[in-house]
């Protein structure tokens, strides 16, 4: 038996889900446990193209730490990540690349669109800028701002956590989801 915790004793722990417990066992719904585990250990893929990427670097740094939400490990390979954070302007030349990266992600996957340019084209209403990434991929959470403050990016991230926690376990196989994907031309 180790010594009791003397220093970090104000650590906030997530509440366990509702369930029935007894001596050595605990029963609850599978979706709740899976949602709890997934939402507090999201591995994001930062798809940073421009100025919002620099605000993201500030979010990753020590002042507004993103790692305390469970995203210590930023992956750069889409095959290993859950959440793609698209930060910055996506030009028409870049849109096929974004779609290809999205297709390489495994289900379940979420998309966070950070900044005005990724959400709707931003101030660049020009011939070469894609007016929002939702023209090519389905988006879960939009974070407005130009660039959004790190607190706003963290708020968007927490909304994604809420979505992950409460997602129905059969959502990715449901006909509505398949219809959403086929409306983007993704099989």
């Amino acid at each position, binding site marked *: 038996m180790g010594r009791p915790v003397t220093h970090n004793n104000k650590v906030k722990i997530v509440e366990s889900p509702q369930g029935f417990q007894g001596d050595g066992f605990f029963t609850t719904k599978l979706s709740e446990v899976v949602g709890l585990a997934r939402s507090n250990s999201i591995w994001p893929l930062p798809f940073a193209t*421009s*100025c919002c990427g*620099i*605000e993201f670097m*500030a979010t990753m740094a*020590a002042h507004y730490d993103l790692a305390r939400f469970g995203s210590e490990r930023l992956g750069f390979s889409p095959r290993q990540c859950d959440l793609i954070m698209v930060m910055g302007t996506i030009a028409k030349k870049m849109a096929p690349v974004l779609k290809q990266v999205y297709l390489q992600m495994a289900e379940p996957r979420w998309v966070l669109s950070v900044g005005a340019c990724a959400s709707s084209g931003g*101030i660049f209403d020009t*011939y*070469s800028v894609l007016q929002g990434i939702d023209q090519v991929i389905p988006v879960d959470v939009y974070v407005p701002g*130009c660039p959004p403050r790190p607190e706003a990016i963290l708020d968007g991230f927490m909304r994604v956590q809420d979505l992950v926690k409460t997602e129905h376990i059969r959502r990715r196989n449901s006909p509505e989801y398949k219809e959403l994907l086929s409306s983007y031309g993704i099989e």
Partner: protein
Amino acid sequence: MIDSKTNIPLAEGSLGKKTYTMNLGPTHPATHGVFQNILEMDGERIVKATPTVGYIHRAFEKLAERRPFYQITPITDRLNYCSSPINNMGWHMTFEKLIGAKMPKRVDYLRIIIMELSRIADHLVCNSVIGVDTGALTGFVYVFEFRELIYEIFEEICGSRLTTNIGRIGGLERNFPDAAFNKIDHFLETFPKGMKEFETLLTRNRIFMERTMGCGGIDAERALNYGFTGPNLRACGIDYDMRTAHPYCSYEDFKFEIPVGTTGDVYDRFLVRNQEIWQSVEIIKQALEKISDLDPTVFHADLPDFYLPEKEDVYTKMEALIYHFKIVMGETEIPSGEVYHAVEGGNGEVGYYLISDGGRTPYRLHFRRPCFIYYQAYPEIVEGGMLSDAIVTMSSLNLIAGELDA
């Protein structure tokens, strides 16, 4: 189902090909920004590199033809977004040159403080990212705390952290509040110690030195032919700095040195940027001293035709309301002509070539972007070297995607 008897056609010449084609980017953890390089590699060595840019082309030059002059400042923010106040000030100075306006000294000194703070921020990002690309993540985390202090100073002045849109044509939009001066003093007290800590991590670190010395160098003659400016050129040994060669904004009143390297490799660029940070701190100290002798209420020139009046005056005085209306609706007389003005940005000479035909919006505005110009030299620098050296070289050149593609 492929039958064993059908032939699978191979690409032309692929059997005899000795090199391996690899695609670096546009999405890659080490390319800070979106640019692609198609590399022909022989093992670890790069035989040929072909860069492709344009993945974040936002058509700034066409967008500028649509916007009135005072609305172009937010576009210039997004060029080199790590040091956006420098771009803003450069644009204001270009337009002030066109109309022939002279700024009071206090405005110049305040502008210099803002520009030097943003230069420090830009160089801090570049140097810490060179560390990250060689595996040293600690420097990045130490240094971003000081960037947060600089962001707080910008917030006191203009309200925004990164894409600042600071200043107006004719000066600044508001006087620096006392909180801004307090924060600048606090920054000047705490920053030198933190910078020394960052330097001790990397500058004489044997692993870092062996990794970066001799890698990614370029000859001074070739650098000039390619149009290099800024710290990359100064690392090759040529002391060409816009602040001393074509002084603008009262830089001639300040005493500072221009650090110069010898071989132009990654280590020299790292050292030159570090020294420039120290020189910027000196310039800020001198500017604060000079400001203390001047009238503290002056923060803009007397240009009623172009300087948007302060909001309290617009709501209370008739004249200010009329001028505000005239400027926003485009009823003021804008001279026609062609002007070129350049400032020393974080990467070199950021130039603005403005052709005005007297209308409300520019006829043509062209940005001379240093990143675009020196990225052409990247294949020449990298060919013959190893892949990991190419990554470190790319981050030491401080390629900002917004400035590359514009």
